């Protein structure tokens, strides 16, 4: 068992994924066909032996609540432990007061009640594998007040929009936290993941609230960094697959890059299962003319056409002669006979049946709305 309360935080107000975000929070986004993004932090926590987990919701909670259910599918004992869903006060998108600190303040009682000395906070808009028990042990051993997880990248100019970065000294002490402005390639992307004592967490929430009603957790932690800050805050480097779904392109790229089996093996390991809710779909049926390459295909599909370099969600139909290339398709989508679809993110239940060619340019994927008929 792991002596930490797990908190899955929501994407802050600076994060907005065009299209998909209109219908659900990032946590509930479909990912790689069969997952939702929230499955990753929850599986990490469950696999680390954490059985008290709080998931915070700030808007449009339906799909997320349904997906999480009782948490049994995340292997959490519902008597001993608990997967709690906790709500922000306002539940309105684009409400600048609806931030993480406000949500924690609203539920301070619930946080205080859990009988665990530590807290581990992980975001619901990032995809990575991490043993939190090991991270907690490293945190305790180091003697730091707060440990932050980061990932060193060499493409921070184009990617990781809206992420924060950590500036570190040689001893991995955090000097400052700032927004990634895309002005350097090599950056330590902050993975919005914190380890600290629960008491300190509660103090910081109260302090943030007192400082400014717009202050977030990263703001208050950032203000304690460096030589002027009063806390010992350190970074720990993460290795392995890492993706941040902070904008539309980030979402598209993370899906497409994982269609490569070798890349996927750095995220999925047999001793670290990623749990999700089953939909009881049948296996996928390929007809005489169906064919798929370099792709991830979910169950319940009927593939009669050609699929390449794509992610196909549950229950999709790709009709005869249809060609799907470089697409990320959510569940229950139909691509009609002979239709050519390329460089698209197609939201669930959409039908591409009328326009013969729905092709966006490479590097500039387009979005097809939920229930849309094109």
């Amino acid at each position, binding site marked *: 068992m792991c002596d930490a309360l797990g908190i899955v935080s929501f994407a802050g107000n600076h994060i907005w994924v065009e299209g998909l975000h209109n219908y659900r929070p990032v946590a509930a986004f479909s990912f790689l066909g069969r997952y939702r993004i929230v499955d990753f932090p929850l599986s990490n926590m469950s696999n680390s032996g954490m059985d008290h987990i709080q998931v915070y919701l700030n808007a449009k909670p339906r799909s997320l609540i349904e997906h999480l259910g009782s948490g049994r599918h995340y292997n959490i004992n519902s008597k001993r432990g608990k997967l709690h869903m906790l709500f922000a006060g306002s539940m309105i998108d684009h409400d600048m007061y609806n931030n993480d600190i406000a949500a924690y303040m609203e539920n301070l009682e619930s946080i205080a009640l859990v009988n665990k000395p530590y807290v581990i906070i992980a975001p619901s808009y990032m995809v990575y594998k991490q043993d939190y028990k090991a991270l907690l042990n490293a945190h305790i051993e180091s003697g730091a007040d707060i440990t932050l997880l980061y990932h060193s990248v060499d493409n921070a100019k184009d990617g990781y929009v809206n992420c924060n970065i950590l500036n570190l000294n040689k001893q991995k002490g955090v000097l400052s936290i700032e927004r990634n402005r895309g002005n350097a390639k090599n950056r330590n992307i902050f993975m919005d993941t914190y380890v600290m004592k629960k008491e300190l967490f509660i103090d910081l929430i109260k302090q943030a609230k007192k400082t400014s009603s717009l202050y977030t957790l990263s703001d208050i932690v950032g203000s304690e960094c460096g030589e002027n800050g009063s806390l010992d805050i350190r970074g720990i480097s993460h290795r392995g697959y890492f993706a941040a779904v902070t904008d539309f392109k980030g979402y598209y790229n993370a899906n497409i890059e994982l269609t490569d089996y070798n890349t996927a093996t750095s995220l999925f390991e047999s001793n670290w299962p990623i749990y999700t809710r089953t939909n009881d779909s049948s*296996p996928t049926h390929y007809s005489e003319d*169906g*064919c*798929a390459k370099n792709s991830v*295909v*979910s169950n319940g599909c009927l593939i009669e056409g050609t699929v390449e370099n794509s992610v196909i969600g549950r229950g999709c139909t790709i009709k005869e002669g249809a060609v799907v290339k470089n697409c990320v398709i959510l569940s229950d989508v139909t691509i009609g006979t002979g239709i050519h679809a390329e460089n698209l993110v197609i939201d669930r239940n959409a039908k591409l049946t009328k326009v013969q060619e729905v092709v966006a340019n490479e590097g500039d994927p387009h979005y097809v709305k939920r229930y849309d008929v094109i």
Partner: protein
Amino acid sequence: MKQNNMLAMILAGGRGSRLHELTNKVAKPAVSYGGKYRIVDFPLSNCANSGIDIVGVLTQYESVLLNSYVAAGGRWGLDARNSGVFVLPPREKADANLDVYRGTADAISQNIDFIDSYSPEYLLVLSGDHIYKMNYAKMLAYHNECNADATIAVIEVPKREASRFGIMNTDENGCIVEFEEKPEHPKSNLASMGIYIFNWKTLRKMLIADMKNAGSNHDFGKDIIPALLADNRKLVAYKFKGYWKDVGTIDSLWEANMDLLDSNNDLDLSDPTWKIYTEDTTTLPQYLGPDADVKRAYITQGCVVNGKVKNSVLFTGAKVGKGAKIIDSVLMPGVEVEEGAVVTRALVANDIKIGKSAKVGSADSEHIELVAKRVKGVE
């Protein structure tokens, strides 16, 4: 029980010895089928979808996997408050020693106390090793409409094959007048599917009498049905139309899998209104590599395909290496076919590895080859 006052008992004690190595370690109802299912998922999902809440599973032989598989009733939604799947192996009682079930009827007789504890009005008796989708609620409605004491589901079989089945001879009203087990000269082509609805009180009396009858085989077909007929009870036949298969041999198990490749097959596992529920395994999604070449195939999550797959069914976690070919074959869960290997007209058992460039099976064999041992690669 609220829903329809009918409790189901699934007979799942068969050895399935004609499935050879497949049933060495697991009972036949736990054998894998259709990419992600086990055979017993069919009667269990049918029960769940028909509004039955209490299911007893009568197990006997090599049942540790079957027992723990069905005990997790949540797979079929059968874990709500007054709902459950209960494993019922033979057991020791205050007044009787531990003994195996002596026949299908004896299996029910020995669990009269279990059934009584729910006081159902109707008892549904099912076999755990048939593949089909049936709404037992409709069968019950027919049973009540006919005011029957027992209703037996039947399916029309080709006349020439009828002598392989238990045949029901009916009058013009669909009432059963005679039951013949594998008759040499069948009078009808209505084969019993081994699916019975009984008024529990009536059956209970019959079973208690049968237990004391030293000459009885304690079998539904051979003893109970004839006894009911002799007692002038009303037995009616409920005609079923649709896919139904008893997969008793390697050939028929292979065939039942191949049936799924026909997109108009009667079983239609993708029907959202009558889903078949099964174990929820945590696997990767299905990966198709750069050299994948898939034609007429049925492939489930956890498979990784980088070779050719034609006319084949791949079960959970099956892997096909680069340049490998899977033709007219079934790869059971966890099978790994390495680079360049060729599998033709074969059924490869769970977790078997076929080494590099090895060849198994042949396109013109009479029977399907069962591959149940590791096949070494060829240098």
